[in-house]
């Protein structure tokens, strides 16, 4: 496979994952705005920070409110991580690697692009927001489903998966990076409604309220939430789950190519050093420091994969 093709697959699936994650964050932000009294400005600020798009927004000089934040995150062409630009990026990369995709996957991603362009052609009125977000996530789910159902399990698939899980791990780590303080024992005041809302926000932004309840019952406990998002391998967006998948796919690649490049070791290192302990060790190390370290390591791993598999000249 061409290095360029591996690169294209990696980014196609990163962008798709990003579009989904951003749309989920928009939904969470809107939900908080609707259910809380008072100013939602701080909440939108933190949502945009989580999506990594706050700085870009501030540079536009626009006043921060719900409407502006939603538009920035959903449709802005100036925002390289908006849902629309992410979907355009995914589709552009899909065109580049079209020879590596099945017909079904190509049509699903092209269909997503065509639908998103139509749905996001204009500012989305508040009352249409749930429907628009729902439709976009349905489309991206179709891409994921056709990938799962029609693609060979070979290096093409491995690069697609590595892109997906690298983006997802990054997303979960950033949510924790922004919201870590609400999970710290020092500010813990069990049962306070403020914390409940904050915890719920975290779970919503990874679509895991139901999953959490199923695994841990109805009582929100910040340590459980931290464990759930960081170490719980049942949870498909936890850091341990994502890094485990990246490691698996890197190993498949190494096996089929008959090599053992540095990226394999780096993935194993993150897993063993940071994602195999109990949650107390995480808090002992300092939740924030811990998350920052993992975020950096994930970024570094991405860079190593680019080098190992000759994404660029």
């Amino acid at each position, binding site marked *: *496979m*061409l*290095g*360029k*093709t*591996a690169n294209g697959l990696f980014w196609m699936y990163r962008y798709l994952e990003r579009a989904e994650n951003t749309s989920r964050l928009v939904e969470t932000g809107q939900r908080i705005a609707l259910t809380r009294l008072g100013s939602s400005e701080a909440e939108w600020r933190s949502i945009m920070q989580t999506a990594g798009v706050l700085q870009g927004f501030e540079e536009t000089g626009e006043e921060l409110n719900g409407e502006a934040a939603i538009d920035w995150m959903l449709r802005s062409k100036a925002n390289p991580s908006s849902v629309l630009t992410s979907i355009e990026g995914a589709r*552009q990369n899909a*065109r*580049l690697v*079209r*020879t590596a995709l099945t017909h079904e996957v*190509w*049509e699903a991603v*092209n*269909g997503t692009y*065509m639908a998103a362009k139509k749905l996001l052609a204009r500012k989305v009125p508040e009352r249409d927001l749930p429907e628009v977000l729902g439709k976009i996530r349905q489309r991206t789910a179709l891409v994921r489903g056709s990938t799962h159902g029609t693609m060979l399990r070979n*290096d093409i698939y491995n690069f697609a998966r590595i892109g997906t899980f690298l983006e997802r791990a990054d997303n979960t780590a950033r949510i924790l990076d922004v919201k870590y303080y609400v999970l710290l024992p020092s500010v813990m005041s069990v049962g306070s409604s403020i914390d409940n809302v904050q915890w719920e926000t975290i779970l919503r932004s990874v679509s895991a309220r139901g999953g959490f309840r199923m695994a841990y019952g109805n009582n929100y406990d910040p340590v459980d939430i931290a464990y759930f998002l960081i170490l719980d391998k049942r949870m498909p967006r936890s850091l341990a789950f994502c890094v485990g998948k990246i490691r698996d796919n890197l190993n498949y*690649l190494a096996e089929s*190519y008959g*090599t053992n490049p540095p990226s394999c070791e780096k993935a194993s290192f993150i897993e063993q050093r940071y994602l195999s302990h109990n949650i107390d060790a995480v808090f002992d190390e300092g939740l924030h420091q811990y998350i920052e370290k993992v975020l950096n390591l994930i970024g570094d791993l991405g860079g190593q994969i680019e080098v190992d*598999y*000759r994404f660029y*000249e």
Partner: protein
Amino acid sequence: MDENQIFDEMWGRTETLRPPYSMFKEWFDGEDPSRLRAKQREAEELFRLTGITFNVYGRAEAEERLIPFDIVPRIISGLEWQRLSRGIEQRVRAINAFLYDIYHKQEIVKAGRIPEHMISQNEAFLPHMVGVNPPGGVYTHIVGIDLVRTDDNQFYVLEDNARTPSGVSYMLENRETMLQMFPELFANNRVKPVETYPTNLRRSLAACAPPATTGNPTVAVLTPGIFNSAYFEHSFLADQMGAELVEGHDLRVVDGRVAMRTTEGYKPIDVLYRRVDDDFLDPLNFNPESQLGVPGIMDVYRAGGITIANTPGTGIADDKAIYSYMPEIVEFYTGERPLLENVPTYRCSEPDALAYVLDNLSELVVKEVHGSGGYGMLIGPTATKKDIAAFRKKLKARPGNYIAQPTLALSTVPVFSRAGLSPRHVDLRPFVLVSPDKIDITPGGLTRVALKKGSLVVNSSQGGGTKDTWVLED
């Protein structure tokens, strides 16, 4: 143009249904027009979803457009096709023999059949290719012969495309679309298949693998990139052939071979189906500014390390000035009378011809020798006086840059319009594959249709559309 001068492929000149269309007519009459209109929209949706679009140059935002597709097939009888394909094969053989000769002993020049300056002064002549033997002896692996029809038995070759003919993906996708939308039509008509083209292309390219090949030849398609107007076709063909789709920056010369950067290191390519012009192929040997090619590929080529398809320098055979010599070329190399006719052509470089052309501009089509895509031409009968005057100036300034031809009464084929079936002018580009042991012509080809009533310009860049082209099993 007088309407009854025009030959319609469905109705002839006398409103008598021609036999190849009889089954179609019966089907069409039984169809509800509103269903057909819905189908026409459905076809467009299919094309968009598949991504069969082309990029429009010169726009700020790379806009993707569809080439309009018309659901009425263009139907050719088996017998008509047999005659045509014999003529095409003869012509393509002659083109390859001509190219070999031009880059070797130039017997045709020595015999006085083509003036020496037509070769040596020709921009499309590539001195780098002199004395080089392309692997398998093939120069034009892929050829598109543009044909027009003016009567029941009268076809003309309008143009030979011996460099990088495009459009074959439309031929294939048009058929795919028709099969999806109107399966019943194919149950009732025995239409010769076209879908073997990619397999044949791969086989044909592999059969020309260079001496350096070990094992099963590695084939790659070289594209200028995602913003090229024909990018869809490049990726489509690579996909269908199971070949890699590469760009210049994926390639470099490694150990005397052209190699592509893969996830496992550099791997040599045996056959490169390039969709990049000669000039951009090798910045070391040709245009030094080119980012699209591979530095040093021509040196590898000359040493037998890679096959380039089509071979560099084939443009000399489809040059519009050389075109006028095609009848001589066919006779010279095959020893036979040409089976397909050329359109009578005036070479404006010749004083007598120029004088005639200047006197008759309003009746002639004047083309640039090196132009393509329907740009830079004058269609006398539809041009305004102002256009003609402006063109006259250009022609006088550089007569050698132009040829002129009579305006042909191009045949029409019906398109499905609001008014039902309406005649529109068409041309035909059959695709020909050349390998060392045979010439393979896909039955049919790409029919381009001028969608504007009365228009003779079928180019997609100027509002043309396409049709599925059927060759029937008689």
